[in-house]
């Protein structure tokens, strides 16, 4: 793999909370063109990894986007370097319209003075993101009354218009119907053509269908890494997931357990 500009390389990432080691030396990478899945049982440290990379939690080690170190910078600076993330619970600005949500996301590279002017028309980037996520008809809808799935897509659209090089998605299909999952997976595939995408997910079926590569975490460490087939054949993974995989049906609509932070 090359060290291209949009590649995320995480090396020996450690996160501790008051002596409790949540992530104990995790290394993985993600490159433009792939949908990298981070999976693992509850408490494996998947979300904590994302939190550390995006500046929400303090971590040691290294997380580089291209040749720039992310760890130690304030969250908003990391975003400006091209790292976008979503959260387990869809967090859009409920009182604002879809357009306003996207306009704010698209605005991070605007000058401060231009903020004092009112918005005129719709940015081409916003139109494109609306089309990609199928939200074109909801332009003026307050984000608060969108369906759950639409909120998640709006969040992804916000990452697209902010021109993130790396997308970190925390359980993007939790609570979605089967059709919505398929649509989301296909969307991620399109998005990943020019960007690196990292998905934290519980849903094994979703992972099998849309992952290009998988990193399995267990108790804060990397257990296994590789293609879907490779990971599924790994006896260590089968041991950790014994019961879990069987218990998670592949069918649509099951509610996902929330991962403990």
């Amino acid at each position, binding site marked *: 793999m090359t060290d291209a500009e949009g590649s995320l390389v995480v090396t020996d990432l450690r996160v501790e909370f008051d002596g409790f080691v949540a992530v104990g030396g995790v290394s993985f990478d993600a490159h433009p063109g792939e949908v990298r899945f981070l999976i693992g049982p509850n408490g494996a440290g998947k979300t904590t990894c994302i939190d550390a990379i*995006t500046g929400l939690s303090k971590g040691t080690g290294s997380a580089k986007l291209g040749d720039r170190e992310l760890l130690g910078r*304030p969250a908003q600076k990391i975003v400006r370097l091209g790292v976008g993330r979503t959260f387990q619970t869809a967090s859009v600005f409920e009182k604002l319209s879809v357009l306003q949500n996207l306009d*704010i996301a698209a*605005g991070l590279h605007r000058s401060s003075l231009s*903020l004092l002017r009112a918005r005129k028309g719709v940015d081409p980037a916003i139109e494109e993101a609306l089309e990609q996520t199928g939200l074109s008809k909801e332009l003026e809808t307050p984000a608060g*009354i969108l369906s759950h799935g639409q909120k998640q897509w709006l969040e992804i659209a916000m990452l697209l218009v902010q021109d993130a090089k790396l997308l970190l998605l925390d359980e993007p299909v939790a609570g979605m119907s089967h059709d919505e999952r398929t649509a989301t997976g296909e969307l991620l595939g399109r998005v990943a053509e020019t960007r690196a995408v990292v998905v934290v997910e519980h849903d094994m079926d979703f992972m099998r269908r849309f992952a290009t590569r998988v990193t399995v975490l267990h108790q804060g460490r990397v257990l296994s890494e590789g293609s879907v087939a490779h990971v599924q054949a790994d006896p260590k993974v089968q041991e950790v997931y014994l019961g879990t995989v069987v218990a998670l049906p592949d069918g649509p609509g099951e509610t996902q357990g929330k991962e403990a932070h």
Partner: protein
Amino acid sequence: MTKLKPWLPLIGIGVFALLLLVVAPLVLSPHWINNLGKYCTLAIAAVGIGLAWGRGGMLVMGQGVFFGLGAYSMAMHLTLETAGPDSLPIFMILYDPLAALPAFWEPFRSEAFTIAAILLLPVIVASILGYALFKRRVKGAYFAILTQALAVALAVLISSTIRETGGDTGLSDFKYFFGFVLEDEGNKVMVFAIAASLLILSLLAVWQLNRSRFGELLVATRDAEERVRFLGYDPANIKLVAFVVAAVMASIGGAMFVPIVGIITPAEIGASASILMIAGVALGGRASLFGPALGAMAIGWGQSSLGSSWPSGWIYILGLVFILVTLFLPLGLSSLLGRAKDLVWRPRATPLATTSDEVTK
């Protein structure tokens, strides 16, 4: 109708300006013009509170500090102007015939310095205070209590420095306003017109801020500060701008309060005065454009009419109104308009749509 809609607030401001600047001087007695001027100065501060609290979610409970900065800057200048060149204010001579003018009074002899102080002092104080608080992510009740404590502290400081600031008696008996004799009826109308114009300007400024991208960002920060951070903005900077703008408006309101009312005392800038400003904004509707201004004017009017004719009852009425509004109209009286509209045109509007409509208006 839809094409007109974005400009409705502007038309509203125009009508309001017409009422204040043309109709009011024609129909009101000099006494009521003066009172209306006082309400205008309170409304200027309230418009700023509407921006910081209604749009920005910062419960600014100590706007008396900034109101006081503007008021005392103006009052010191008017006191010196009344005393004449090279003379001391009378209250200082009364305390100590041999007293020298304190160093911080001296520059307020200058008109230009006074105007600069009214505009820049709140910027400096609010910037330092806001930077320290917002960068440390102080918010909610802690922010409210802290600002409130500052208002108390400033009032106590002024009360306890009788020789320098006039203490509890305050500063009063101003004869001139930038060369104009304040006794003169025509000049009184002029001072009123200045206050009313500044109120109109404040409304225009907040209208533009609300419809700008900054306004959208401010609402977004109010509703989900962390999300804004993960879109690449520093919420502290966004809040700081709104806080500083609100502080400048409070200062301008305070500055115009002085020539109109003719006296400024620590009681006008302390805790209860600051809370009264908040009460007006809450009553009118903190997130709307006109709500804060009209609410503040209504409270001001109640204060000077009912408050003087029936002081014991007024306090209870004020308390009752406040409780009723908080319970049944959390977004203030202006939200009644939106509700009425929904009843007439969209009888089946969902409650969620109603609230978002009110806030983004």
